[in-house]
C-alpha cells in the first residue's frame, strides 16, 4: 500500500546526493583514469593500512570510553556556566589541525607544561611522540563529539523514568543497570563508529605526533604515491581503500546509532535523585574539571603564545582572513543546498541517501583536489576557480556532520507536520520557508556554525590551486611559518581561532535566539 509522500519531494535529495557522489567518486575516477601503470599496493601500503586501522580503533574506543563519565557528569549536574562549558568543550572539533597540534605540544611536548611540572617534581619525563601521542591527539579532537553524542543519549531518557527510579528507591547501580546501560548500548557503538571513520583519514597529526614513519597512515601513503612517485594509480587505489573503510564504518555508524543526533537541546540537566551523594558529586566534578582542563588548556596556550604576534600581522593576513570568511560563508550556503534536500529525502524514508552524504568523511582532500584539477583543467582555468572549488570541497567535507545534526529534527518536522501541511496545500518553497526552516532553527544554526568553522580552519585544496592573490588564512599562516615568521604565524593562529569560534558562535546563537515552543 502506497503511503503518499506528503509535503516532501525526494528528487532534489537524490540530485544532491548524486552531486556529492560524483564529486567524491568522480574525482577519484578522474585520477584513476589519468594513471599510468603503477606498482599497486606493496607491503609498505599494507602496513599503512594496518596502522591506520589500529590507531583509528584505539582512538574511537578511548574517546568513546572517556566520554561516558564526562557525559554522565554533565547530564546529572547543574552548575553555573554549564551551557558555556558544553559549547567550549566543542572547540577542539572545529580547531584547525595545525593549531591543535601546536597546542597539544605546548602541553604534552618535551618542553610542554606537563614535563615542566614533572621535571620540577623530579620525576621522569614523558614523551608524547608515538602511537599514544596519535591517540591522545585524536581523543583531544573527538572527545567533545563523543561527549555530545552520549550526552544526547542521556537527555533522551525521559525525566519520568528517573522520577520513577527515585520513587522505587533505586541507587546509582540500579539506575545504571535499568536505564543507563541500555541507553549506552544503543548510543556508544554509533559514536565510536563515527570517530573511527574520522580518524581513518588522519595524516599530519598522526605523522607529527606518531614520532616518525611508523605512524604512516593511508592518507600519507596517498601523499607519497602522488608526489614522491607520481603513481596516480596507486594514489587512486589507496583512496578507494580509504573510502571502503570509511564507508563501512559510516554505514555501521548509521545503522547502530539509528536516530540519535548530536544536535540541539543540551541545556537541560536532569534532576537525579540517585546521584545526590557527596562521593558521586566529587567524582562528577573531577571528571568535568579534568575534561575541561584537557580540552581547554592547549587552546589557551595557543592563544597565549599567539597574542604578541597579532600586532605583527601584515595587511595580507587580514586580507586572507576576509577571503577565508567569504569562502566559509559560501561553503555554508553550499552545504545547506546539499544538506536540506538530502535531509528531506532521508526524513521520508530514503535513509540510504544519508549514507551517500557521509562519503565526505571518506574523501581524501588530495585526491579530490587533484581529481577536480584534472576535470576542470580542460574546460577552465583552475586558478580562477580556486575559491568556488575550495568552498565546494569544504561543504562536502562538512556535509556528514551537518546531516547527523539535521536529519533527526527534519524527520520530526516531516512526521509531526507533514500531514497538516498537506491538507493546507502548504508545499514546496513556502513550506521550507514557513514550516521547515523555523522549526529546525537550532540544528540549522549548529550545522551552519560547524560548517563555517571547519571551512575556516581547513587548509583544504586551496594549497593546490593558490596563486599569490588567492590565499586563505590557513594558507597564509603556513606561508608565515615557511618564511621563518613563527611569531607572526602564532598570531595568525589566534586570528584563525577567533574567527572560527566567532563564526560558530554567531551561527549557533542565531539558531537559538528567539527559540519558542
Amino acid at each position: 500500500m502506497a503511503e503518499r509522500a506528503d509535503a516532501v519531494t525526494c528528487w532534489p535529495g537524490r540530485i544532491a546526493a548524486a552531486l556529492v557522489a560524483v564529486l567524491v567518486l568522480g574525482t577519484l575516477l578522474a585520477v584513476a583514469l589519468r594513471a599510468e601503470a603503477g606498482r599497486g599496493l606493496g607491503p609498505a601500503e599494507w602496513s599503512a593500512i594496518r596502522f591506520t586501522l589500529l590507531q583509528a580503533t584505539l582512538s574511537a574506543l578511548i574517546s568513546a570510553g572517556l566520554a561516558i563519565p564526562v557525559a554522565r557528569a554533565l547530564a546529572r549536574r547543574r552548575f553555573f556556566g554549564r551551557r558555556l562549558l558544553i559549547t567550549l568543550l566543542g572547540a577542539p572539533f572545529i580547531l584547525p589541525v595545525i593549531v591543535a597540534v601546536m597546542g597539544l605540544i605546548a602541553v604534552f611536548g618535551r618542553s610542554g607544561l606537563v614535563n615542566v611540572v614533572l621535571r620540577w617534581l623530579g620525576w621522569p619525563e614523558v614523551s608524547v611522540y608515538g602511537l599514544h601521542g596519535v591517540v591522545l591527539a585524536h581523543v583531544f579532537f573527538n572527545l567533545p563529539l563523543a561527549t555530545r553524542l552520549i550526552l544526547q543519549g542521556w537527555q533522551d531518557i525521559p525525566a519520568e523514568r528517573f522520577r520513577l527510579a527515585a520513587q522505587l528507591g533505586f541507587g546509582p547501580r540500579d539506575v545504571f543497570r535499568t536505564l543507563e546501560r541500555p541507553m549506552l548500548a544503543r548510543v556508544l557503538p554509533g559514536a565510536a563508529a563515527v570517530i573511527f571513520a574520522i580518524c581513518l583519514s588522519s595524516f599530519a597529526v598522526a605523522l607529527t605526533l606518531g614520532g616518525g614513519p611508523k605512524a604512516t597512515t593511508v592518507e600519507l601513503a596517498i601523499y607519497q604515491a602522488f608526489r614522491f612517485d607520481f603513481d596516480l594509480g596507486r594514489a587512486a587505489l589507496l583512496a578507494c581503500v580509504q573510502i571502503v573503510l570509511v564507508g563501512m564504518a559510516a554505514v555501521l555508524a548509521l545503522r547502530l546509532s539509528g536516530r540519535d543526533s548530536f544536535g540541539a537541546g543540551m541545556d537541560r540537566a536532569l534532576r537525579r535523585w540517585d546521584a545526590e551523594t557527596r562521593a558521586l558529586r566529587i567524582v562528577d566534578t573531577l571528571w568535568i574539571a579534568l575534561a575541561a582542563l584537557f580540552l581547554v588548556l592547549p587552546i589557551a596556550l595557543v592563544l597565549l603564545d599567539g597574542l604578541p604576534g597579532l600586532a605583527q600581522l601584515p595587511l595580507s593576513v587580514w586580507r586572507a582572513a576576509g577571503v577565508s570568511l567569504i569562502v566559509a560563508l559560501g561553503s555554508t550556503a553550499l552545504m545547506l543546498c546539499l544538506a536540506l534536500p538530502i535531509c528531506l529525502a532521508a526524513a521520508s524514508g530514503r535513509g540510504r541517501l544519508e549514507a551517500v552524504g557521509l562519503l565526505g568523511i571518506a574523501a581524501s582532500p588530495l585526491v579530490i583536489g587533484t581529481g577536480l584539477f584534472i576535470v576542470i583543467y580542460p574546460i577552465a582555468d583552475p586558478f580562477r576557480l580556486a575559491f568556488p572549488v575550495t568552498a565546494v570541497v569544504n561543504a562536502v567535507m562538512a556535509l556528514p556532520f551537518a546531516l547527523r545534526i539535521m536529519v533527526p529534527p527534519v524527520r520530526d518536522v516531516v512526521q509531526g507536520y507533514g500531514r497538516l501541511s498537506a491538507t493546507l496545500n502548504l508545499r514546496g518553497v513556502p513550506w521550507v520557508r514557513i514550516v521547515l526552516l523555523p522549526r529546525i532553527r537550532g540544528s540549522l544554526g549548529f550545522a551552519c556554525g560547524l560548517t563555517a568553522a571547519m571551512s575556516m580552519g581547513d587548509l583544504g585544496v586551496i594549497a593546490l590551486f593558490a596563486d599569490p592573490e588567492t590565499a586563505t588564512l590557513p594558507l597564509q599562516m603556513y606561508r608565515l611559518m615557511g618564511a621563518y615568521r613563527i611569531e607572526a604565524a602564532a598570531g595568525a593562529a589566534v586570528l584563525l581561532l577567533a574567527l572560527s569560534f566567532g563564526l560558530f558562535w554567531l551561527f549557533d546563537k542565531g539558531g537559538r535566539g528567539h527559540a519558542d515552543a
Partner: protein
Amino acid sequence: MLTLEGISIVQGDFRLSADFSVEDSTRVAVIGPSGAGKSTLLSLIAGFLEPVAGRVLWNDEDITATAPGARPAAMLFQDNNLFPHLSAAQNVGLGLRPDLRLSGEDTRRVEEALARVGLAGYGARKPSALSGGQQSRVALARVLVQDRPLVLLDEPFSALGPALKAEMLDLLAELLDETGATLLMVSHDPEDARRVAQRTILVADGAALAPQDTAPLLDNPPPALKAYLG
C-alpha cells in the same frame, strides 16, 4: 456528496472495506473499537492513503488520486494542528494562503474568523501563550477560513477535559450550521456522537458500514458495537 465506491484498503495484515455515500451537510461520527481503522478511513478520504481497489468520489468526480491539499476537505489531527513558531493569526492565515502572502482582505477574514471563535485580539499570540481550549479554537478558525465543503476531525479535542470538549463540539456544530459543510468525526466516546452527529459510521471487523442514524444505533447496538461499548 462523498461516495466511497468499492473501497478496499490493505496494510500488511490489516484490511478495511467501505462502500457507501454521505449526504451533503450531514454531521457523521465514526466510531468503533481501537485499531479497527477509523483513522485509516479518514486518511483515505483526506488523501494520505491510496486504496488497492475502489474509488473516492466527490459530487461524482473521482478524487482518488487527488493530492491532499487539492481535495475539498479540511482536516484536524489528534495533535500538531498548529505550528508552534507561527502566531495564531498566521496559523489561521495558512488556511487562506499557504505561502502566507495575505492581502488586506485575507487579513480581515482571519480577524473575523478569530473573532467568530471568541479569540478577537489574540491574533499575535503564539500557541504556547494560549490555553489548550484556545489552541483548539484557533484550529477551528482555520477550518472556518478554509471554507471546504468537507471537514475531517481525527479526535482533535481528545486531550481536552469533558466540559471544554463539549464546548468545542458545540462551537463546531454552530460553525457547520453556518457553512453547511459535511463533517466526518472520529470519536471513541458515544456521547460525542450523540452530541453533534446525526449519523454514525461504525467501523468494525474490517468494514466501515454505511452511516446510520446515531440515536437508534447507539440505543440498539449490533454485537460488534455492543462489545465495544460494554
